Structure formats: structure tokens, C-alpha cells
């Protein structure tokens, strides 16, 4: 198979699932004949028509609510948020209805909400968000974020097939910047399982999304200084692969949590608390978090560059940890 982009992998997942299961449908703003703001759904409307690729008015709350109502009547909706930032408009439908339904009366809500997430695209505060933690904090939801072409397809398939509501975040920076060959046959990436992108000896770096590539760049540089990073791509944030993190930290004794999301209330804090609880005696040094600062995402390039974690940050912290 020829190499495809991260974005094309997302489209392929939807296309194949829609062909495989006639209950699957796509809904969102501009997703039908326009093919979506980023063209992720391009071609789907022509193949499946208006009852399976549904163009919606600007009403994120109603879009999610409608998806919930459809899912209670045998359908498997995939909601596109034009930018994941707009998901805040649907906060109540997601947290009050979708997340709590199975708990309160046994009826599951098998919807997927997907959309372009994260920054480094000059998007500013409303087109660059990392909203994952509002939803990682909500029992009843699942939250995933692929960083590779292979995972983009496999995780979206897993999300569509999952009987619970799944938030699928797509780092938009990667849409057309990464390309890879993937298997032609059907495969699924299980939710809740991380993957070791680079085995190593000295420091565990647990990360997800675009920051994977920051970690890999850093690993390459640090190798020359004799520092060996073990990089875990979490892929799933809720649930996250706790076992993989613990096993790795028990081997290396040092942990860096790297995410583009802001510091306070970020996933790094959650993981750090669990590692301290379960692997305290294995730690050789304090757990470090490398994240964006606690600000909205700024627009001007010097500001956003300041905002985003860089490989130089990882290098500096890694050296500090080795010298501790």
C-alpha cells in the first residue's frame, strides 16, 4: 500500500467502518458536500449520501445531543467538531448525558466525537486547544489521541466500535506532516494500551500527540551524550496504560511527563501521583513534567514558541535528572 497521511488514515477509518456497518454515520458542520473544514470527510458524502453524512447547523450542543438520541436508537454516530475547541459548547451534553447514561440507567451511548486538536499552527486561543482533561476527568468517557498514521486509523476504528462514548483527538499539526504505509487489511488499536516507541535505559518519557516527535528528536540528541530515553506513546488518555508506565519507571527510575496541554490539571500530574504511589522506591529522582504554561494558547509566533514544549526543554530536564 502506498504511504498515506495522518489525515487520510482518519478518513480511511471512517470510510471502512461505514462500509462495514451501516449503522455508522458522520455528522458535523460542513462535513457533507464540502468534505469538512480540513477535508477529512471528503468523498464520504458522495458515497453514502445525506442520511449517513449529515451536514449540521452551528449548534455543537445539539449536534452531540442529536448523536446521543441516535445512539439510543441503534445508530453509531461519529461527530466531527470543526475544531475541537468548540467542544466546550457541548460540554453539558457530553458530561451530563453521554458520560452518565450507562451508570444511571444501563443504556450506553456509543458515540465518537472527533476533531482537530492542539496547536503550533498559528491558530490562537480558539483553534489550538488541548481540551482532553475536562473529559479525562469525566468517568464514563474514553479519551484517545493518536500520534502516528497507523494509530490514527486503528484507534478511530476502536473508538467507533466501542460501546461507550469516546473522544478522539487529532493533533492537527500532524495532519499532512506525517505519512506512512499501513496494512491494507482491517486492524484495530486497542483503547487503553500505550506503545514503546523507543526502548531505553535511563529515563522514561511518557507522552502523547505531537509531543511524541519532540521526545524522539530529543532522544536522538541525548543519545550522543550517553543518555538513553525510553519513550512511551500513551495513545489513550482515559484509560491510560498504567502498567506500561510502571514497568518502565521501575526499570529506568526516572520519569518525564511531556504534553502540549497546560501544566495544572494536565495528565502529567495524574500519572505522577500514581507513580509516586505505586513505584516510589524505584525513583532515582523527582518526577518532572514538561508542558505548556498555564495560559491560553497565544497567537503571535514568539509567544506560541515560548508556549510550546521543545526538545531543548526535554534535553535540559533530562540532563538535570541524570545529575540528580
Amino acid at each position, binding site marked *: 500500500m502506498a504511504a498515506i497521511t495522518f489525515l487520510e488514515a482518519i478518513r480511511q477509518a471512517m470510510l471502512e467502518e461505514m462500509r462495514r456497518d451501516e449503522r455508522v*454515520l458522520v455528522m458535523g458542520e460542513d462535513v457533507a458536500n464540502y468534505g469538512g473544514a480540513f477535508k477529512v470527510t471528503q468523498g464520504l458524502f458522495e458515497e453514502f449520501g445525506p*442520511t*449517513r453524512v*449529515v451536514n*449540521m*447547523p452551528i*449548534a455543537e*450542543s*445539539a*449536534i*452531540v*445531543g*442529536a*448523536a*446521543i*438520541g*441516535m445512539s*439510543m*436508537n*441503534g*445508530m453509531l*454516530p461519529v461527530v466531527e467538531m470543526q475544531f475541537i475547541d468548540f467542544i466546550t459548547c457541548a460540554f*453539558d*451534553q457530553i458530561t*451530563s*448525558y453521554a458520560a*452518565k*447514561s*450507562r*451508570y*444511571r*440507567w*444501563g*443504556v*450506553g451511548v456509543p458515540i465518537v466525537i472527533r476533531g482537530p486538536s492542539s496547536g503550533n499552527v498559528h491558530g490562537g486561543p480558539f483553534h489550538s486547544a488541548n481540551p482532553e482533561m475536562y473529559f479525562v476527568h469525566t*468517568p*464514563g468517557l*474514553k479519551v484517545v489521541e493518536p500520534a502516528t498514521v497507523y494509530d490514527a486509523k486503528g484507534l478511530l476504528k476502536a473508538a467507533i466500535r*466501542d*460501546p*461507550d462514548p469516546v473522544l478522539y483527538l487529532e493533533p492537527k499539526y500532524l495532519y499532512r506532516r506525517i505519512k506512512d504505509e499501513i496494512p491494507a487489511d482491517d486492524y484495530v488499536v486497542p483503547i487503553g494500551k500505550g506503545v514503546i516507541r523507543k526502548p531505553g535505559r535511563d529515563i522514561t518519557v511518557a507522552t502523547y500527540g505531537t509531543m511524541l516527535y519532540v521526545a524522539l528528536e530529543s532522544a536522538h540528541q541525548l543519545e550522543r551524550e550517553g543518555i538513553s530515553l525510553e519513550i512511551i506513546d500513551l495513545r489513550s488518555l482515559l484509560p491510560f496504560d498504567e502498567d506500561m508506565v510502571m514497568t518502565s519507571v521501575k526499570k529506568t527510575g526516572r520519569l518525564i511527563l511531556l504534553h502540549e496541554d497546560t501544566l495544572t490539571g494536565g495528565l502529567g500530574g495524574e500519572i505522577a501521583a500514581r507513580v509516586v504511589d505505586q513505584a516510589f522506591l524505584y525513583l532515582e529522582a523527582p518526577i518532572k513534567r514538561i508542558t505548556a504554561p498555564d495560559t491560553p494558547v497565544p497567537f503571535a509566533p514568539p509567544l506560541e514558541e515560548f508556549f510550546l514544549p521543545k526538545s531543548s526543554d526535554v534535553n535540559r530536564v533530562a540532563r538535570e535528572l541524570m545529575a540528580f
Partner: protein
Amino acid sequence: MPSRKSDNGGKPKAAAETRPKLWQDAPEGDVPAETRQRILYFMKLTREVDDRIERKLYRQGKILGGVYTGRGQEAISVAFTCALAEGDFIVPSHRDMGVYIARGMSLYRIFAQYLGRRDGPARGKDGNMHLGDLRLGLVSFVSMLADSVPIVAGAAMAFKFRKEPRVAITFGGEGATSRGDWHEGINLASVQQAPAIFVINNNQYAYSTPAREQFHCETLAARGVAYGIPGYRVDGNDPDAVFRTAREVVERARTGGGPSLVECVTARMTGHSAHDDPSHYVPKEFFEEWGKRDPIEHYTQRLLDEKVITPAWLEETEIEIKKAVDLAVTQAEACPYPEPEECLTDVYYDPTRPVVNQ
């Protein structure tokens, strides 16, 4: 000099006098005797259940948390439900015990729910009116009532896409119409021309907030114009009028005619909840006036006068209802609570857990 007096001087009448009425009244027509009898039966059963919950069990300290009844509003829930078919999809509100009763949810499960017991539809995970069972087409609503409106829009879209002759309906108070989701959901359903029905239970108070502080338009039914759908304003205490309206809007939705908005005007004859004393903010004249318009008293008299029911039937029915409620309460009080560890169950799909409510 042109006259400055407002004598119209030959000009056309002021716009408010000649513009078309922005909403419809309840349609005319006959309601079958058997249906009317069923409606009265369910209304009486609903009132007995509500009274047992609020005026007995709650006052006896047997129910914890909130208690919300639809006292005085029974005609709306019951008459609408009697106009629906199996397979229709309903998201009620906390004033709609009549929906659950008329739809056939067992009294035992309803009381078990209020008592937080294992056999309530929520199995203790939720309480009071958050009752749901998809086998009866009933959805356990959330407390943010207007959230139901997009849910119903979506369900209706599903029926339309699949060409199923089913309708989706939601009930909410005039208070719920102030939230954004109410607008978003009706707008979506009307754009999609989906088989949805939006009922407003305008009981004139949202907690302590009177209707004049809730909305400024002349009537809520008039909002139908804004969505391009028919809007009705009906006497919510007249079960026949409500049923005739329900029948018409259900038929319209079911046959591809799209959504309708129905404002039923009624009165909340109790506090917002059992612990709320409404005499602090509702003028006593309101209760006096609406107390004379009790829907059950009036409908009973009307059906007796028109010989749809007999006094003997009435007496038997009241005895039967009381017995059924007594039995359900006794059984519900004997139902165990869920085990404490149940707190951790059903957050996510678990194939080992029993399937419930669907």
C-alpha cells in the same frame, strides 16, 4: 400641517390588529369514549402515585433527596402519551409521572426508584423522576431539562433516515425554554423536518420565577413561527383538548409533516419540590383560581355527565387504584438497597453485567 393625533386618518389598521395569529388552538374533533376513560384512569392513578410519594412517603421521612410531582398537570402527560404508539421515543420531565404511568412502567419500579432500592430502573444510581426504560420508549432524562430537546431531534432524525414510522417527543417546562439547547434542538429538528414533538408544560412558575420573568414573547407557542413549524396553545387542564392536539401533531410527524410545538397552559399546584413552600412567592389567588380548574375533578364530572363512565366504575376504580398503589409501596419498601460496591459498576460497558432497561 399633518395631524399628529393617532386617529389613523384613513391609514391601515395597526399591524398587531391585522397580523395573522402566530399560533393555533387545539383542533376540534371527537375523542373515542374508550380513550377518554383510559385518560381519566391514568390521571387518577398518576395523582394517587404522586400524592403517595409527596404527601405520605416523603413526609414520613422515607424518601431522601428531592421529590417533584406534577400535581395539577396530569392531563398533559397522560393525554399526550395516550396519543402515542409503541416504538415512539419519549423524554419526559420531572412533572410527567403521567407519562410513566400511561406508558406502563410498573408502580413497583417507580416506588423502588424513589426509595433508592435495587429494583428501581436506576438501581439506586439515580433517584426520583430519572426513570427510564427503552423497552417502553422512555428515556431517563438529566436535570438540565433542555438537554432533552436535541436528544429528541436526533432520535427523530434516526427515524426519518431509516424511514420508520416512529415519532420522538419531549416534555419540559416554560423554564426549560430559556436554555440554548431548547433552541438548538428545535432548530435542528425543523431544518431536518424530523418527526419530533416539543411539548411545553407551561405551569407558570419555574421554581419561584414567574413566567413574566422567564420569557417576553406573547406566548411560547408563537415561537413556532421562528422555527417554521406549527405552534399550538392549548388548555393544559382539558384532557380532551390536549388529546386532540396530541393526535394531530403526532399524525403530522408520523406522516412526514415535520415537527410541532405545543404549549399547554396549566398550573403547578404544589411547590417546586416537596420541600418548597410556594406560598412565599405564589399569590394565593393563583392557587384559588386554578384550584377550581382541577383537571381530574372536571374531567370526572364531564365523563359522568356524558355517560362515558358510571359512578360504579368510578368507585371501583378508586378502590382498585388505591390497592395497587398500597401493594406497590409495600413491595418497594421490602426491596433491598443495592450493595455498596455497586457504586463502582456500570461506568463503562461490562459484558458480565446484566442488560437493563432495553
